[in-house]
C-alpha cells in the first residue's frame, strides 16, 4: 500500500517538475529564439512571471531524486552508472542556468556587457538541460542500456546517444517552450504581447508535433515498440486521444482569444496526458535493458520499513509544502489585480 503512495509521489514529482520546472526552462528557450529587439521586453515579462517561484519549481527534481535513491536504490544506482554522462551534462546545465539567472538579477551593477554574458549562459543552459533530461528519460525506455557491454562506448555512450533518446530530448525541449509561451500568455495584459506569445506557442507546438513524429520514427529504427506500447494499452490510448482533443480545443480557444486561464490548464493537461500515456504503457517497468529485461518499481524497491517511513515523510511533508506553495503562487498572482 505504502509502496503505491511512494510511486504516486514519484510520478507526481516528475510531472510537476515537467510542468513547472519545464515552463521555467521554456522561458529561457523562448528567450533564445527571440529576435534581439524584442529580447528586453520578453525578459522583463518572463522575469516577473518566474522570478519569485523558480527556486521552488526546481525542488521537484530534488524530491524525485530523493524518492528514487531512498525508495528504489538499485534503479537509482544503475541509472547513475550507465547514464553518468547525460546526468552530468544535465547537472552542469542546472548549475549554469540557476547561477546565471540569479546572478543576472542580483548583480548590483547592471551593465550591458555582464548582463549579456549572464543571458548567454542562461539561454543556452535552458536549452541543454531539458534536452538532456529528455535524453535520460528516453534512455530509460530505449532499451539501449547494456550492463553486459564490455567496451566504454557501448556501456556509457550508446546507452543514451541513440536516435530514440535524442529525439525524446528534442521533444522535451519543444514541450518546455510550448508550456512557457502558453504560461506567459496568461501573464500579460498587453494585446500585442498576447498576440506575440500566442504565435510563439503555436510555433513551439508545431515543433513539438514534428519532434513527436521524430520520436516515433526513431523508435521504429531503434526497435523500440513505442506504437505498440501506446496503442496496445487502453489507458495510454485514451490519454493520447485526450491529448489530441485538448490540442484541438486549445487551438480553438487561442484563435478566439477567449479565456486565457483555460489555455494554461489545457496545455498542462496535454503534457500530463503524454506523460501518463508513456508512463502507464510501461508501468511498473522503469528502466528497460538491452537484453529485454527491466527494473520494475514493484520489485526493485527498498525494504518495507524504508518505504513506509519514506511514504509517511512524503505525506507529512506535503501537508507543509502544498499550502505554502499555494500561498506563494497566490501571493504573486494577487498583486496584478
Amino acid at each position, binding site marked *: 500500500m505504502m509502496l503505491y503512495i511512494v510511486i504516486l509521489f514519484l510520478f507526481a514529482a516528475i510531472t510537476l517538475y515537467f510542468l513547472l520546472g519545464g515552463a521555467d526552462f521554456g522561458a529561457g528557450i523562448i528567450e533564445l529564439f527571440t529576435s534581439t529587439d524584442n529580447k528586453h521586453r520578453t525578459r522583463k515579462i518572463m522575469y516577473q512571471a518566474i522570478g519569485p517561484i523558480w*527556486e521552488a519549481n526546481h525542488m521537484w527534481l530534488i524530491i524525485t*531524486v530523493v524518492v528514487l535513491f*531512498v525508495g528504489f536504490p538499485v534503479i537509482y544506482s544503475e541509472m547513475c552508472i550507465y547514464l553518468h554522462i547525460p*546526468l552530468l551534462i544535465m*547537472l552542469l546545465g542546472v548549475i549554469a542556468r540557476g547561477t546565471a539567472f540569479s546572478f543576472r538579477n*542580483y*548583480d548590483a551593477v547592471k551593465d550591458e556587457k555582464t548582463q549579456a554574458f549572464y543571458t548567454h549562459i542562461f539561454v543556452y543552459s535552458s536549452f541543454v538541460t531539458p534536452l538532456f533530461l529528455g535524453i535520460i528519460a528516453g534512455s530509460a525506455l530505449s532499451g539501449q542500456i547494456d550492463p553486459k557491454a564490455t567496451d566504454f562506448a557501448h556501456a556509457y555512450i550508446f546507452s543514451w546517444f541513440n536516435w530514440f533518446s535524442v529525439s525524446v530530448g528534442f521533444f522535451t525541449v519543444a514541450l518546455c517552450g510550448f508550456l512557457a509561451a502558453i504560461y506567459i500568455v496568461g501573464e500579460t495584459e498587453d494585446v500585442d504581447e498576447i498576440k506575440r506569445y500566442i504565435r510563439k506557442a503555436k510555433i513551439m507546438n508545431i515543433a513539438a508535433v514534428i519532434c513527436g513524429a521524430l520520436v516515433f520514427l526513431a523508435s521504429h529504427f531503434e526497435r523500440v515498440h513505442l506504437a505498440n506500447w501506446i496503442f496496445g494499452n487502453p489507458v495510454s490510448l485514451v490519454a493520447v486521444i485526450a491529448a489530441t482533443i485538448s490540442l484541438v480545443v486549445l487551438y480553438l480557444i487561442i484563435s478566439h482569444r477567449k479565456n486565457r486561464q483555460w489555455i494554461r490548464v489545457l496545455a498542462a493537461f496535454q503534457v500530463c496526458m503524454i506523460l501518463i500515456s508513456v508512463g502507464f504503457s510501461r508501468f511498473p517497468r522503469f528502466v528497460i535493458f538491452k537484453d529485454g529485461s527491466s527494473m520494475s518499481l514493484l520489485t526493485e524497491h527498498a525494504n518495507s520499513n524504508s518505504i513506509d517511513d519514506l511514504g509517511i515523510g512524503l505525506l*507529512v*511533508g506535503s501537508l507543509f509544502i502544498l499550502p505554502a506553495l499555494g500561498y506563494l503562487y497566490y501571493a504573486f498572482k494577487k498583486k496584478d489585480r
Partner: protein
Amino acid sequence: MDDFLAARSQMALSLGFHIIYSCIGMVMPVFMAISHFKWIKTQDPVYKNITVAWSKGVAIFFATGAVSGTMLSFELGLLWPGFMKHAGPIFGMPFSLEGVAFFIEAIALGLFLYGWNRLNNWVHWTAGIIVGVSGVASGILVVAANSWMNSPSGFDFVNGQYINIDPVKAMFNKAWFSESLHMIIAAFSATGFAVAGIHALMIYRKQNVLFHTKAFKIAILFGAAAAILQPFSGDLSAKNAAKRQPAKLAAMEAYFHTQEYAPLVIGGIPDTAAKKVNYGIEIPGLLSFLVHDNFKTPVNGLDKIPVKNQPPVAVTHYAFQIMVGIGVLMMLIGIIYFYELWKKKDLLSKSWFLKTFIWATPLGFIALEAGWTVTEVGRQPWIIQDVMRTSEAVTPMPGIQYSFYLFSFIYFTLSVAVIFLLKRQIQMVPELYDRKTA
C-alpha cells in the same frame, strides 16, 4: 590520476564548495531577520537598508548553494553507486526530510525576496524567519546523514547483507547530535566572522559608517557567541570520535602508541613510517584527560588499528591542528569583543580592533573546511565506518578524472564570479542601499 582518487577528489571539491554556500545561505537569513525585526520595531531606515542589502547577498548564495546541493544529490550516485545502492534506504530518512525543509525554505525565500511592499510586514518577517529555521533544519538533517556514515546504526550487517533496517534509528544514530551541533555552531561563527569582517573593512575605509556599524554588530554578536561555544561542542565531538572512531581520533592527534597518561601533541610533523611525531609539543596526560576525564586512563592509539584500516595520518592531523588553532583564536577574539562591549568602549573607532576583524574574515571558513577534512579523511578507508570500504563504493565507469577537471574548472569559475558579485554589491552600497546616511 586514477579513477578512485579522482572520484574522491571530485566529491571533496563539491562538498567543500557546497558547504561554504549552504552555511552562508543558512545563517544569513537569521541575521536578516534580526535587522528586519529592528526595522519594523524602530522604523530606522538603516535597518531596512541592511536587510535589503543582505537579502541580495542571500539570493546569490542561496542559488549557488541550491544548485551545488542538487549536484551533490546526484553525485552520491554518480560517483558512489555501490554505496547508495545499500545506504540509500537506510540513511535516506534525513535526506527526504531535508528535501521537505529545503522546499519550504525555497518557497519562503521567494516570498521574502519579492514580498517587499506586497506582504504585510509581519507576514513578510515570518517568511524570513521560516527561511532561517528551515535552513538550519536542513543543515542538521544533512549532517545527521553524514554522522550515520561515521556511526552506522539502524541495520544489521550479516554475511554482506543489510537486514532489519530501521531508518528512524539510523537517523538518530549516536553521533547525530554532537556532529550537527558542531556544524551549526561552526556555520554561525564562520558566517558571523566573515560578514563582520567585510563590514569592518568598510568602517575602516570610513564608508557609510553608520550602515556598516549596525550590520557589523548584528553579525559579530552571533559570530563571537558561536566561537565561544564551539570548543565545548568540539570536546563532545572528540569524545564521540574516541568512542566510535578510535582510528580517526588517533589520526587527528597523530597518536601512534597506546599508553597511560596519553599526551596531547600540538603541531609537529607526523612520520608514519617511524610512528612518531617530529617537532611537536607534547603535553603529558592531557589527551587521556580530554577523552576520559582523568589523566591516567590509556587512550587507544594507531597501534591498535590494523594498517589497512588506518586513515591517512598526516592530512588528518594537520587539518585537525588548523581547525583547533583557528577555533581557539576565534574564541579569543570573541571574548575580547564581549569584554570590551561590556566595558562600553568605543571600539569601532580603533584601527587595531577593526584590523583584527578584517584579518579574521576568512578564518572561520578555513577552520570549517579543515574540520570537514578531519571528518571525511579521518573516516577513510571506510565510507560506512567498519562496514563498507570507499573503494567498494566507487563507480565502475572509467575516466572520472576528466569529470574532476571539469568540476574544478566550474567551481573555480563560480567562486570567482561570486566574489566579483559580492564586490559589486559592496561597491554599490552608497548608491543602492544607504543614500541618506552616505
